[in-house]
């Protein structure tokens, strides 16, 4: 499935700064290549720089140093001239960052109406399809302030999918979700990764960060770790699960008796 010779995202010696203070380095010398259709899960404890890492990966924040390539083209950030590239990437924020003055349906419709210059009624059919797909129809007319976290996150997913991106970057998508929502997300992201029929059937490249690796068990996923300002590639689930790294065991919530006790 993956094509390592033509990565969609490539980082060479990339230095990543904090979003609010780029002078503060969060990660150093990141070397990473993401092939089309790959499903990456990045394990990282809170405050380890996973949001900063994902925002740089998504071209929202320029790297402090190093070479970042998107579909083979070196870039720093997706500015106006790279709008077409920008729209190939969907981004889901940890808190979804829905626009608080818009309803769920309006939030989802916004990128479509803005980029295609449509009246809300003209985009309604496409929006309704996505609402159906993500089971958001009953709350389509509710504003985010009146929704529980699980549904807000799902609306963030639907908004990111509105323009059918090739790559989906998700910041801790399962964090704080109820169990049934975790199950729904894991299944849905897998379908997207294989190519969801309702979205054209094209396999989607997925990059997700998490502070809990347990729900991400899956044969087609690749794992990496953010630790001590470094980006460490761990390989498949089995390779990752057999790692002796204490942080991996923490993120897998391995029972205490199997973790070496600190001396």
């Amino acid at each position: 499935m993956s094509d390592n010779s033509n990565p969609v995202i490539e980082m060479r010696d990339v230095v990543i700064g904090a979003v609010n203070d780029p002078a503060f380095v969060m990660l150093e010398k990141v070397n990473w290549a993401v092939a089309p259709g790959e499903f990456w899960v990045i394990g990282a404890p809170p405050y380890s720089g996973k949001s900063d890492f994902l925002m740089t990966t998504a071209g929202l924040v320029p790297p402090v140093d190093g070479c970042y390539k998107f579909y083979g083209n070196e870039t720093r950030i997706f500015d106006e001239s790279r709008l077409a590239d920008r729209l190939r990437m969907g981004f889901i924020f940890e808190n979804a960052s829905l626009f608080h003055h818009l309803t769920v349906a309006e939030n989802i419709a916004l990128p479509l109406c803005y980029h295609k210059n449509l009246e809300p009624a003209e985009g309604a059919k496409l929006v309704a399809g996505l609402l159906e797909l993500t089971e958001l129809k009953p709350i389509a007319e509710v504003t985010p302030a009146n929704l529980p976290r699980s549904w807000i996150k799902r609306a963030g997913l639907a908004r990111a999918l509105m323009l059918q991106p090739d790559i989906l970057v998700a910041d801790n998508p399962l964090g704080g979700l109820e169990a049934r929502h975790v199950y729904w997300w894991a299944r849905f992201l897998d379908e997207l990764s294989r190519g969801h029929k309702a979205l054209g059937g094209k396999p989607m490249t997925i990059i997700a960060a998490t502070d809990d690796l347990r729900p991400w068990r899956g044969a087609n996923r690749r794992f990496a770790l953010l630790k001590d300002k470094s980006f460490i590639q761990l390989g498949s689930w089995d390779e990752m699960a057999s790692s002796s790294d204490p942080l991996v065991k923490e993120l897998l919530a391995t029972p205490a008796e199997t973790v070496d006790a600190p001396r």
Partner: protein
Amino acid sequence: MFLITVQGLAAFALITLAVILKKFNVAPHVIHPMIRREISRAGIQLLPMFLFVAFMLGFLVIGQTVSVAARFGAIDYIGTVMVTVVMRELGPLLAAVLILARVGTANVIELGTARALNEVEALESLGIDPVHYLIVPRVIGITLGVFSLTIYLVLAALVSGYLFVFLQNVPLNPGDYFKELADSMNWLDFALLALKSCAFGFFIGIVTCYHGLAQPLRLQEVSRVTVRAIAQGIIACIFIDAIFIVLYLHL
């Protein structure tokens, strides 16, 4: 610090102007309804309050003028005083300060909250220019709001001024009063009134949007930047007013 703020505001104003000109026809189905909403918020919805303030202003200025002018037998100058005080100075400044308080404050809080909740980054992730989506409708709305409400305020104050004259039994008939007003005005008053009110509106929009949006914020910082934005908005209006007084004196 002062210079950095001025530099930041100037850059923000230029960027906003450039986006208004360059993207006026980008996504009109999304942006133009937002502009109409902002015009309604900064203009139409404030009209009843402005008419009330205008009537009070007319009573106030004429009341003071009548009591002073009657002592010197200078009742004939009431119209001139109204034009000078209400049309050139108090009207535009009062309209600007009222809109700063009612709409500018809401602007900083809304944008500051949006900034703190990552909504600006969310717009960027969707390929939507935050200046185009969040700033342009507000700046255009406030500019047109200040401009039109200033005109309503001045007109209503001039009319209410005569009401006060009438109620006080001052020997001045309506024809003479309005003739005096007309004689005291010239084309420069109209041109500078339009320019001044538009400048007030534009800079109120810029100052409030800049403080709400231009820098990364945390939720607890929103109240602090709101106070700063309103203070700087008042200073900006007074500074613009001073520039226009110099213009009046030299043209």
